[in-house]
Every structure is written in structure tokens, then in C-alpha cells.
């Protein structure tokens, strides 16, 4: 194979044509997304189905959701480098790559989402420090830089690159100080994950989103950070599992997964308890104070009370309970069910905090607002998925992402 020198030693990869076919498929989807993106930049946001009532829609949800599920990166960093769970080194590379993908996409989506992309830098230059979005933008960019730095040594471990002494040393030295970056990442993540919670929580004109007193600060901020820390690892596990299925080999030892899942389970449980307290206070104190009953917020056929049940019980308590029990974790069906539910749960939470906030009528004489994304919105939201598949495929093929791969899949 002509690309052999690029492939890490001691592992087996699929044939070039297989890989090319796979990449072509992913690239086609990517191209569709890029086409939609160019269309939007060229013609403006009239290419979307957003409107004045739905100024925030699919994209902002996608942003919030991918940042949440990309939270596996900072949290595994936190566990590995700060708490000292060294086993997690076996999955942290992958978590960083997923994080990198998620955050680069989040920034890209923001760049598509704004009406005047060429003025996007105003958010930094003319920053309003009171705005949650400013905080998000700053931390997001900084953390993306951190993730890039965390990703670089991994890239440099590509056999071909690693042969250059300069790059080899660079990689080595960067690994050495990775703990500092991990800590920085954790610090930044606490900020922007929390701020993302604030994005909706501070909207005191939106009774569905608004939280008062400690339930905005630090509660909502905390909830967002915590849920990202809880469900991010689940997404990392999920993507690892998918990668294993596709490559038809085990890449990470089950013990590592189990540990990650267990921690995640406890995080989910604690998060969902806090979320429940928040919901109860909001439903029985905050909302009635503004003239709303809980059921007013769930009075639409789309947004019925089932959503709240799904978010808290089905995708909250249930996965949490599965993951904290040993038997649940060890049963691979239950484990994956819990992981998937947890990921859905956090995405649903972000959906509710964006889409439902817009849908709820604030005036007694208004009806529920409905919104259905245009194909351009869908395409640009699918774009990150295709991009993620491409990056992961390349990374897996050419980089020693999984330290345990050789051990688990000896080449005879």
C-alpha cells in the first residue's frame, strides 16, 4: 500500500479502496452542507425557515448540543490530569478529537448563523461584557485553541511526521505540559458551558427560560456545566462504540469504558436531581409569579408534558441509574441504552432551552409558534456530522488514537 508509511505501526487498517469509498460518501454529505453554507453566506438568512419569533432555532440548538456532547474532552481531561484517573488516558485522545470536532463545528455554525458574518469579529472588538453570548464566544474560541493544542501532539505522532526530530520533540514536550492545557480547558469549559446555560436563563422576558435568584446563578450555569460533564463522556463512549463496530475490533478496554461510564452515571444522577429541584422551584414559584402555570408551558401538541418526562426521567434518571449499577454497566445492551439515552437527554435539554423557549407564547392572545427547518439549515447541521466522520476516520487511520488497540488487536 502506498499510504503505508502514514499508518501507525502494529495496527491493521482497511484497504485503500474501502477507505476511499467511505470517505467519498462522507465527503459527498460534507459537500452538500458546504453548498448550503455558501448559499446562506451568499443570499443571507432568508435561506432558512427562521423568522422573527424564531430568531434562535436549529443552529443554536446544534451549537448548544454539540458543545454539551463535546464536553467529554474537558471532563476526561479533568479526570485524567487533575483527579488522576490514569486509566482514562486510554480514551482521552479520542475524547479530545471529538471535542475538537464539536468545538470547531460550533464556531463554524455560529459563523453561518449570524446575519453579517463579515462583522462577526465585533463580538470580540466591541464586546458587551454583560452578554452571555460574549462570554460564550470568548471562552469558546479560547477553549477551541486549547483543544487544537491538545490535538497537535497527537497529530505529530503520525509515524511519518514523528520521524522529523523537531516535530518528534515538539510532540513529546507538548505531552509533558498537557496537564496545564487540560486544566486550562477545564477552567474555560466551566465558564462557557455555564454561560451557555445563562444564554437562555437570563432571558427574563421569556418565562419558560427565565430562572430567578440562585436558580440563575449559579444553578443554571452549574446545570449546564454538570450536564455536559455528565453526558459528554457518554457521547465519547457512544462514538467509541460506533467506531469499534465499524472497524470491527475492540479499541478500548471494557474496564476503561466501565470506569468512564460509572463516573458519568453518578454525574447524571446528581445533575438530574439538581435539575429536578430547579424544575420544581421554577414550576411552583418562578412561573406562577409571572402568571403562568407549569401546564401553560406544555399546552401544545408538540411541546407536551411528555417532553419534561422524557428529559428528566426517561433520559435522566433511567440512564443514570443504569450507569451507577455495576450490573447495568456490565450488560452491554443496557450500557449502550443508557449511554444513548443520556446523550439524547442532554440534546433534548438543549432543544428545550432553545426551541421551546421560542415556541411558548408569552402573550395570552398569541398562539404557539411553530418552526420547521429549511433544507439549508438541515444540511448545514448535518455538515458537522460528515466533517466529524471524516476527521475521526482520518485520525483513526493515521494516528495512534487508541493506545490499547495494539494490545487488543495483535497482528499475527
Amino acid at each position, binding site marked *: 500500500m502506498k499510504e503505508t508509511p502514514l499508518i501507525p505501526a502494529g495496527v491493521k487498517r482497511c484497504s485503500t479502496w474501502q477507505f476511499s469509498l467511505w470517505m467519498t460518501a462522507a465527503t459527498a454529505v460534507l459537500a452538500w452542507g458546504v453548498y448550503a453554507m455558501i448559499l446562506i453566506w451568499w443570499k*443571507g*438568512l*432568508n435561506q432558512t425557515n*427562521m*423568522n*422573527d*419569533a*424564531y*430568531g*434562535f432555532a436549529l443552529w443554536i440548538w446544534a451549537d448548544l448540543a454539540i458543545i454539551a456532547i463535546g464536553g467529554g474532552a474537558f471532563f476526561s481531561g479533568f479526570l485524567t490530569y487533575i483527579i488522576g484517573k490514569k486509566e482514562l488516558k486510554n480514551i482521552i485522545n479520542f475524547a479530545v478529537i471529538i471535542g475538537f470536532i464539536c468545538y470547531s463545528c460550533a464556531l463554524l455554525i455560529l459563523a453561518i*448563523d*449570524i*446575519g*453579517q*458574518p463579515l*462583522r*462577526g469579529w*465585533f*463580538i470580540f472588538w*466591541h*464586546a*458587551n461584557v*454583560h*452578554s*452571555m*453570548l*460574549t462570554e460564550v*464566544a470568548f471562552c469558546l474560541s479560547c477553549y477551541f485553541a486549547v483543544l487544537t493544542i491538545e490535538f497537535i501532539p497527537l497529530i505529530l505522532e503520525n509515524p511519518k511526521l514523528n520521524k522529523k526530530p523537531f516535530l518528534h520533540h515538539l510532540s513529546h514536550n507538548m505531552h509533558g505540559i498537557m496537564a496545564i492545557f487540560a486544566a486550562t480547558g477545564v477552567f474555560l469549559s466551566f465558564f462557557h458551558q455555564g454561560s451557555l446555560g445563562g*444564554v437562555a436563563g*437570563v*432571558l*427574563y*422576558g*421569556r*418565562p419558560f427560560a*427565565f430562572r430567578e435568584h440562585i436558580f440563575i446563578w449559579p444553578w443554571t450555569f452549574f446545570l449546564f456545566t454538570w450536564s455536559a460533564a455528565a453526558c459528554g463522556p457518554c457521547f465519547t463512549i457512544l462514538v467509541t462504540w460506533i467506531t469499534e463496530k465499524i472497524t470491527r475490533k475492540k479499541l478500548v478496554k471494557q474496564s476503561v469504558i466501565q470506569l468512564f461510564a460509572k463516573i458519568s452515571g453518578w454525574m447524571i444522577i446528581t445533575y438530574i436531581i439538581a435539575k429536578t429541584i430547579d424544575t420544581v422551584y421554577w414550576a411552583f414559584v418562578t412561573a*406562577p*409569579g*409571572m*402568571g*403562568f*402555570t407549569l401546564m*401553560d408551558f406544555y399546552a401544545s401538541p408538540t411541546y407536551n408534558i411528555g417532553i419534561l418526562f422524557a428529559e428528566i426521567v426517561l433520559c435522566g434518571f433511567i440512564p443514570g441509574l443504569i450507569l451507577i449499577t455495576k450490573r447495568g454497566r456490565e450488560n452491554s445492551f443496557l450500557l449502550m441504552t443508557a449511554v444513548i439515552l443520556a446523550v439524547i437527554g442532554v440534546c433534548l435539554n438543549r432543544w428545550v432551552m432553545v426551541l421551546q*423557549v*421560542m415556541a411558548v407564547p*408569552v*402573550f*395570552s*392572545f398569541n398562539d404557539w*409558534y411553530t418552526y420547521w427547518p429549511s433544507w439549508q439549515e438541515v444540511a448545514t447541521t448535518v455538515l458537522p456530522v460528515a466533517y466529524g466522520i471524516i476527521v475521526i476516520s482520518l485520525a483513526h487511520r493515521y494516528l495512534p488514537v487508541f493506545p490499547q488497540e495494539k494490545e487488543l488487536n495483535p497482528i499475527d
Partner: protein
Amino acid sequence: MKEKNNHKHAKRYGMVIDLDKCTGCGSCMVGCYSENNVPFKTDETNKLDSINWIQVYKITNGKPFPNTEVCYLPMPCMQCDGVGKHGHSPCVSVCPAVATDYDYETGIVSQIYTRCFGCRYCMAACPYHARKFNWWDPVWPADMEKYLSPNVSPRMRGVVEKCSFCFHRYQLARDKAYYEKREELKENEYQTACAEACPTGAITFGDLNNKSHAVYKLKNSPNAFRLLERLKTNPKVYYLSNKRWVRRAGDNYLAHEEPAKIKQKVNQHH
């Protein structure tokens, strides 16, 4: 120069709209369109992408024939003072690029189209749907560009706009006052286009802090109310109606609540 920023003499321009006088004719909307260079499209029936700085809502009491009643409700930007009257209006605090600010001299919430980069966070924050996004580039067909007013800058695609309380009229009135070496504006020197256009005189505009202005007295009427007061947005647009159902429709109440009592409670907090 040394025109120090003196908050003591600050004005709080506001509006009182008498809903019993409003006939829903739409003159305020058209007056606003033509004053403020508001664009129009071939199809304006999707009210969610139609730019209106003041929009007249039609609400009914929901009772069947023949007890049905209709009330028209013109809604400009409420120019919220926000929690604690510190200019912490829902939109101003969220704008990431200071494209909208609260003017302490007039109490008016600005929107600067050239600063706005179109993130629409302010639209998500505003419960009144007062903010509109320029989804399209504006187009004035035939020779219609010739009627555009130089006093209001036409907006480009991709930015948010909203009612400015015809701030340019304040600017022009101030120009005249400077020229005549006066400190203060007269009540009729600065009026919004909608207040002027309203053919029944339902809209009264003035300084809510000035006891000699008509709005000062009107806002203290027992029939006065503001929209969504319970959210503590602290709007500067007041409404009058002698119909109870109309006053109740202006906010959200639980079944057992009485608007007048709630209003008292809310206002005590301010």
C-alpha cells in the same frame, strides 16, 4: 461645551395608547413605514418576517356571537427600562456587541444597524416581538427610493431593527433648540410619527417624568396598564382601556388572580 451628563434632568420618553380610541385603521403603521424607511416585500402576509416597528394586533374577548368584542392593540418597542430602571432592558443586556444601548438622557433603547452583526439574541430576549430581522436586502421598486427619508438610515440585510421612538425627530428638534439656544424641548417639538399619524389621537407621547406633559397624567389613570408588567421589563409604553378583559389580556394571570392587585404588587417593586 461641558454639557455634563446629568441624570437628574434625564427624560423618560414614553407613550400612552388609548385602546378605546384605537380603531385599528393602521395609520400608525403606515406613518411609521414612511417615516422610518421601512421596506416592504411583494408578500407581507407572513407577519413573522414582515418588518413592522409598530404592529397593530387584533384581540377578541373570545365570547361567541353576539357578545364578541374586538380590541386593537398597537405595539411599538416598549423601550423597557428593565429591572431596577437601570437600562437593564431584556435586549440591551444580551447584545454581545453593544449594538443596542439604553440612553440615560431619554430612556430610549437604540438599535445601531451598522454595529449589529445579526446574532438575533435580542430578538430571543424580547417578549414583545418588537425586534425584526432583515431577512432580505431591502428593495424599493420603480422610483420608490426617491421617497426615502435622509433622517433614518436604510437598513441592510442581516441586521435587527426596531422602533426607535423616532429618535431622529429628537435629534432634529435638538438641532433646532441648539440653534435657538434653548436647553429644553417643548412637548410638541418631539413627537413620534405614529403619535402624529394616529387619526383618532389615541397615541400620546411625551416625557413620563415631566408633570406638565400629557403622558404623565394619563399613565396614572386607573385604567392604565402595561404589557407583561409581571416580567419586570418595566416598559415605557402604557395602555388605557376601560374594558376589564382588555386590561387582563395585557399580561398573564392565574385563574384566581386579580390584575389590579398584581399590578400594585409589581409596581411596588420598582
